[in-house]
C-alpha cells in the first residue's frame, strides 16, 4: 500500500497527513476493543470511541473556532470519516457534522451559537432528523409539521423514519413544514413528552437507525425563517461527501483484507493472488476505489477553497465512492471463497453497509439525475 499512499497524499498538507495517520491508528485500536455488535453491546465501545474523538476535538471539527471547535475543513472531515468507515465504527460522526452544518448554515446565529458550543464542549451528540426515509433533509420529503400556539411556542407532529446515528442523540434537529409552505429547523432534546424513539435494526449492523414519532412535541425554532433551499443543499452535499469518504474507507478495508488473503492462500501450489483472474479484478477494484478517493478529496478541496462546482463534485464523489464500496465488498467476499460467506469473517458488514449507506440522503438514481441537473444538461 505504500506506493499508493505516497501518491495520493501529495496534495494534502503535513498536518492533514498526520491527522490521517493518527485517525488510522486510533480506529485500529478502537476496532480491536469493539468486538461484534451483533453479539454484544456496541454501546460501550461506541461511547469510548466518541469520547476519544471528542478529546481530540474531532467530534466538533465542523464547529468554528469562535464557538470552541477546531473549525477544520471538509478535507479533514473526509480524512476522519474515511478512517471511521474503514473500521466500521458505530460513531455518530455523520450526524454530528451535519448538525453543525445545519446550525451554521441555516439557523439564527444567536441561537446556533449555544448549540454549537454544546457540540464543541461535550462532544455532544446532536443529530438531524427529517424525512420519511432515512435521513433526507431535502425539503420535499418532510413528514413532520410544526404548529405555532397562541403563546408563540411550537409543537411538532409527524414522523421521521430510519434516521441514522440518532438513537442516542442528546439534541435533535428536526426539519418540519411550517404553515406558510416553508420549512423550519426545530430543536428537540430527548427525552421529551410526546417523542417516541424506536431503534430499528437495518442490514447495516454498524450504524444505528431509529424511527421518531412526534406527538405534540414542544420544540424551539432555530432557523432564520423561510429556510432557503440553497442553504439546505449546502448542508446536504457536505453530508453526501462525508458519506462518500466513509464508503471509500470501507472499500479500502475490503481491498486490504483481500490482498492479504490472496497473497497467503495457496491453491494449485501457488498463492491465488498470482492468478490473473484475481489480479486483474482486484486491480480494477483498486482503480475504482483510488479514483473515488481522489474525487472525494477534490470535492472537499473545492468546498474548502470556495471554488465553483462544489455541489457537482460532492455528488460525483458520492456516486463514485458508493459504487467503489459495492464493488470492493463484492470482490472481497468472492475472493475469500467459502470463508468470505461466513458470519465470523465479518466481510458481510461491508456488503451490508454498501447496500444501506447507498440509500442514505439520496438513492443512486436520484444522485445521477441530480448531477446532470446541477451540471445544467
Amino acid at each position, binding site marked *: 500500500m505504500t506506493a499508493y499512499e505516497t501518491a495520493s497524499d501529495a496534495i494534502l498538507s503535513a498536518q492533514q497527513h498526520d491527522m490521517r495517520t493518527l485517525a488510522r491508528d486510533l480506529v485500529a485500536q478502537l476496532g480491536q476493543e469493539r468486538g461484534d455488535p451483533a453479539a454484544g453491546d456496541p454501546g460501550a465501545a461506541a461511547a469510548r470511541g466518541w469520547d476519544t474523538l471528542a478529546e481530540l476535538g474531532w467530534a466538533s471539527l465542523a464547529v468554528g473556532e469562535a464557538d470552541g471547535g477546531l473549525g477544520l475543513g471538509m478535507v479533514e472531515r473526509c480524512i476522519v470519516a474515511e478512517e471511521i468507515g474503514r473500521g466500521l465504527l458505530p460513531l455518530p460522526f455523520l450526524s454530528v457534522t451535519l448538525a453543525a452544518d445545519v446550525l451554521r448554515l441555516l439557523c439564527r446565529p444567536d441561537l446556533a451559537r449555544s448549540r454549537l458550543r454544546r457540540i464543541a464542549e461535550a462532544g455532544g451528540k446532536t443529530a438531524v432528523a427529517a424525512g420519511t426515509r432515512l435521513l433526507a433533509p431535502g425539503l420535499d420529503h418532510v413528514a413532520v409539521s410544526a404548529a405555532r400556539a397562541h403563546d408563540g411556542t411550537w409543537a411538532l407532529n409527524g414522523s421521521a423514519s430510519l434516521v441514522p446515528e440518532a438513537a442516542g442523540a442528546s439534541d435533535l434537529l428536526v426539519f418540519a413544514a411550517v404553515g406558510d409552505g416553508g420549512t423550519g429547523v426545530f430543536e428537540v432534546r430527548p427525552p421529551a413528552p410526546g417523542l417516541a424513539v424506536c431503534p430499528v435494526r437495518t442490514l447495516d449492523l454498524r450504524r444505528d437507525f431509529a424511527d421518531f414519532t412526534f406527538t405534540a412535541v414542544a420544540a424551539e425554532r432555530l432557523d432564520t425563517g423561510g429556510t432557503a433551499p440553497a442553504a439546505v443543499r449546502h448542508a446536504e452535499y457536505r453530508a453526501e461527501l462525508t458519506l462518500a469518504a466513509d464508503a471509500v474507507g470501507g472499500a479500502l478495508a475490503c481491498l486490504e483484507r483481500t490482498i492479504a488473503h490472496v497473497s497467503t492462500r495457496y491453491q494449485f501450489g501457488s498463492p491465488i493472488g498470482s492468478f490473473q483472474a484475481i489480479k486483474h479484478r482486484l*486491480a480494477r477494484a*483498486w482503480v475504482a476505489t483510488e479514483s473515488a478517493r481522489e474525487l472525494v478529496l477534490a470535492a472537499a*478541496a473545492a468546498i474548502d*477553497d470556495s*471554488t465553483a462546482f*462544489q455541489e*457537482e*463534485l460532492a455528488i460525483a464523489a458520492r456516486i*463514485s465512492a458508493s459504487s467503489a464500496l459495492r464493488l470492493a465488498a463484492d470482490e472481497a467476499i468472492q475472493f475469500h471463497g467459502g470463508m468470505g460467506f461466513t458470519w465470523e469473517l465479518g466481510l458481510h458488514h461491508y456488503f451490508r453497509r454498501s447496500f444501506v449507506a447507498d440509500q442514505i440522503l439520496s438513492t443512486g438514481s436520484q444522485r445521477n439525475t441530480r448531477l446532470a441537473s446541477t*451540471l445544467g444538461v
Partner: protein
Amino acid sequence: MSELELTAVRVPPSALGASLPQVPDDHRFRLEFRDWLAGNTPPSPSGMTEAEDFAFRAKWQKALYEGGWAGPAWPKRYGGRGSGALEQFMYYEELALAQAPRVTNESGILLLGPTLMVHGTEDHKRRFLPGILSGDDIWCQGFSEPGSGSDLASLRTRARDNGDGWVISGQKIWTTWAAYSKWCFVLCRTEDTPRHKGLSMLIVDMDQPGIEVHPIRQMSGRADFCEVFFEEAQTPHDLIVGERGQGWQVAMTMLQFERADQGYTDHAPLLVTLHLLRQALSDAVAGSSLLPPEAARLRFADLWRRCQQLRRYNLRNAVNAEQGREVGVAASTVNVFWSHLVKDLAEFKASVQADDGVLDNTPTSENLLYSRASSIYSGTDEIQLNIIAERILGLPR
C-alpha cells in the same frame, strides 16, 4: 454540428471544472500562453488528406517552437521553457481550451527527447534535441516486433558490431510516424545474455538503403503507424543511448514518460469535447441522437464525473512531480482509468451526433474507431493491471 464550428470557438475555463488553487485560472503562466494562443492558433480545416494533415501539424509545431511554446517541460538550454509539472498541467489545459491542433512530433517532444535528456550524451543532446523540438526532425520509437508485443523483452531485432559501427537486422512494428521519420530509437539485441539483459538502444537514421518502411492501414482507415524492416542497416558506435546492454533501462524510462504523459495531457481535451457536446445534447431532441434525452443527460453526467476524477489524478501526479517525487507506477492506474474513459466518451460522442457517427470518414466516426487503440498502446490494459496488482498492491507474481 460540424467539426469546423467546434474549432471556431475558444472554450471557457469552466469547461474543465473548478479553478484549482495549485493551477488557478488566472495564473500568470496561463494568461501569457492564452494570450499567445489567441493570436496564433489556426483553426483546423476539415477534410484534409493524411499528408495535408501532417503538413498542417508540422506548421503548427513550428509556430509553437518559434513562439517559444513548443516544449514547456524542456530545459531552457534546449529551447524549452524549463517549466515544472504544474506549468505543464496548465499548458495542456490551455492548449485544449484554445482547441489547438496537435503537433507532429508528439512522441519526440514527450518521450524521446526527455529520454535523451536522461540517458543521452552531451553530443546527442546538442545534435538532436533542437530538431525534435522544432519538428524539423520527426522521430519514431522502434520497440514492438511481430513476435514481441506485451512481452517486449523477447524481441529479436539484432545489432552486431562490425568494427566500424552497428549493423542492424530485424523487424519492428506499430512504429508511429515511421513513414515521416528522420530518426528512430531502435531497441535491439546486442549481447548474448537473455531477455532484458542483452538489449541496447540505438539511434538509427531512417534514410538509408537498409531500411524499408511499410505503412499499416489501421481500423480507422488511416495509416499513422508502420512496419519497419532492417536489412543490414547501419549506425555509428556513438549513436548508442546508454551503455551496451543497458537498453532495457532506457526503454523503461521512455515507457514511464509515455504512461505519465497521458496523465498530464489528456483530461483537458476530453473535458473540452464533453463541453462541446452540451450543444448536441439539446439538439438530441431534434433527432440526430441515438440516445433518448434522459439517457444522454445521465451519460453526460457520468462522463463529466469520470473526467473530473482523471483531472484530479493528473493534478496529483503533477504535484508529486513538482515536489520532486517520481510518478512511477501510479501512471498505470491513470492509464487504465483514462483508456476506458476515452473509449466511452468517443462512443457517447458518436451516439449523440449520430448523423456523423454512422458515416465513414467523419471526425466523429474516426474518433470512435481510433479510441479503440487507447487500451492497447503504451502497454495494454492487461499489462497495466498486472503492474498495478504486483507493484502497487503487492500481489505475488
